[in-house]
């Protein structure tokens, strides 16, 4: 069930360019226009326009009630979203930095994720928790984490990491439709990136891995900001005659593993690239899926994980970039993997 990337085949009417932030804002606006149960709550999403400017002018279009500024109370606002969802609304919570989900883990994990199952299936918690993750802004250890592995490990949560401007709108609309709690992890460095965004309210279904590039020599599986970085690296490698397939899971839970396993079977060599620290990170799961399937027999080399270092994120720019895989790191590791003796 692999989907191919809209932007690779832009249909004539969706050639306009938007930023990732604008695409998200458009999804929010369309969802709120179409369904009056949908509303947003979060810190400084009103006149301030959001810590990263995502909600922008929405408060002027939808009012303070539906673009609801909150006190600094992450646990309270996520809990309020759970309650509102149970009472028939479709809340969208913005947490300013994903690091602050730590404040709200009880309501996310012990409440939102479990209620549908725990109460016997009669009710559900249709809410979306949007939050930016990642480093690259010099904000140091408490404002730069990538905690997707935690959420992906929690049964009852759907977890999405939109990596392209073209898909983020449709993915968010699908997340808002979803009757389950969806953790929607946006990368800070993507907010200003531009791309083609389809007009209209076409959904991009959750739970589909996307093959971003086809190549016979190795498979790169990457998430979030590492997807574009890996595609760049693949282009560089192609100049050297090394052809890489790049697969983006997009949805971490529920995971669509087939396209990944197929790619491994075709290429025999795998590199897993993520920004988060490697130890017990999401890419460990990808490695385990491969090594736990018949794709194992196709492996011509050990599975290479290229991940963030297992350390807190430092402030100094040189240290910050040394912490996470950069373009050159991916190229070098990809080359080594492709040329390694079987």
């Amino acid at each position, binding site marked *: 069930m692999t989907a191919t990337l809209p932007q690779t085949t832009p249909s004539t009417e969706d050639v306009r360019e938007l930023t990732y932030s604008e695409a998200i804002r458009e999804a929010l606006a369309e969802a709120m226009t179409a369904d009056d149960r949908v509303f947003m709550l979060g810190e400084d999403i009103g006149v301030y326009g959001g810590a990263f400017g995502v909600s922008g002018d929405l408060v002027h279009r939808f009012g303070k009630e539906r673009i609801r500024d909150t*006190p600094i109370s992450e646990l309270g606002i996520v809990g*309020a979203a759970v309650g509102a969802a*149970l009472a028939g609304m479709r809340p969208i919570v913005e947490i300013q930095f994903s690091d602050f989900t730590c404040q709200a883990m009880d309501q996310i994990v012990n409440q939102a994720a479990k209620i*549908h199952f*725990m109460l*016997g*299936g009669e009710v559900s918690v249709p809410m979306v928790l949007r939050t930016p993750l990642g480093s690259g802004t010099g904000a140091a250890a408490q404002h730069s984490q990538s905690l997707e592995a935690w959420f992906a490990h929690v049964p009852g949560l759907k977890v999405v990491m939109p990596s392209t401007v073209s898909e983020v709108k449709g993915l968010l609309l699908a997340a808002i439709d979803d*009757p*389950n709690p969806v953790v929607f992890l946006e990368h800070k460095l993507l907010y200003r990136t531009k791309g083609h965004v389809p007009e209209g309210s076409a959904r991009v279904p959750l739970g589909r891995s996307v093959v971003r590039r086809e190549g016979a020599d190795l498979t790169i599986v990457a998430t979030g900001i590492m997807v574009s970085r890996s595609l760049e690296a693949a282009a560089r490698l192609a100049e050297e005659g090394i052809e890489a397939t790049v697969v983006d899971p997009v949805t971490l839970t529920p995971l669509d593993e087939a396209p990944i396993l197929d790619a491994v079977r075709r290429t025999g060599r795998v590199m897993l690239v993520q920004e988060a620290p490697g130890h017990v990170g999401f890419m460990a799961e990808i490695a385990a899926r491969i090594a736990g399937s018949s794709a194992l027999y196709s492996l011509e080399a050990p599975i290479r994980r290229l991940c963030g270092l297992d350390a807190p994120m430092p402030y100094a720019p040189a240290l910050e970039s040394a912490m996470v895989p950069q373009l050159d790191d991916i190229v070098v590791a990809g080359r080594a993997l492709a040329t390694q003796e079987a």
Partner: protein
Amino acid sequence: MQTVVTNVQIREFVITAIAHQPPVQDGVPAAPSSDPATARAALGTMWRIRRFEEAVDDLFARGLMHGTMHLSIGQEASATGVCLALRERDAITSTHRGHGHCIAQGADLTRMMAELLAKETGYCRGRGGSMHIADVATGNLGANGIVGGGIPIAAGAALAYKMRGEDRVVASFFGDGATNEGAFHEGLNLAAIWDLPVVFVCENNKYGMSFSTEFSMAVPHVADRAAAYGMPGVTVDGNDLDAVHAVAAEAVDRARSGGGPTLIEAETYRWKGHSKSDKNLYRTREEIAEWRGRDPIVALEQKVTASGVLTAADVAAVRDEATDAIKAAVREANSGPDADPGDLLDAVFAPVDATPVQDVTR
């Protein structure tokens, strides 16, 4: 793209509690004990709670029930008095010690007992157990195994009602210990700044597990904490049904008419241990005996018979009905099928095609 109604099945209202609200004279509801029908209903609720939990205690002792149980025997008046002040379509959030709230809201006793007996016919199909009973039909948004967990949820439900312009109220039950959690602070603050229709009901039974309120907070009353949120805080004898109902009715009325939230502290006591593993090392026999002497059910029975609102025979009949109702519930519940392990994984996510237009208290 307004989506279609689906996975919330609406069952008939079980109106035990809310059917018999006391007569109202110029805005002020009469004391439940002053009206025969209301007194009978309230006493019946309290007895059903008492008998239900005695049955649970017994089933547990005989090894017929597993997990752990938190009994509210001795606290029946607060649950009953508060829910009596609610209307149809109002909602509650409850706690780990939630059987009383659930019954006072009018839950189906058989489905409750079936849940505790891990039956497929239980409220949660045996998935939740004692700490997680919720009831769509009676507006019970759910018991909660997390201390303080229901407080922000109550605020959120009230926010939904307010945003939709519905004149519905949420009563949120929690214990004294819960007021030391950040969730209490954040939940009450949100309700206060947004003037939400919530009534926060702290059942102060003097202990959070073993930790006395004398040590867990530096103020004499939980109600004193209302000052931090600019909301009214009131302390009431939680074993006096009329008193609880009076403050609850006033708070519910304020909430419904846009006056915002209230913090009610109902002073009461749990007769039994905190849970099944409690050795009672933190309180004296004398203290327990003293509070057993202040049995909220006996107090109400004496009041209504003394006043002649009900006869001794009426009272006995109410008690016997409750006893029979629980016996029947246990019997019926036991006859149900055990919870079915078949579909564990299918039950994790609600089906995407079944996006609900959901309101657990429609």
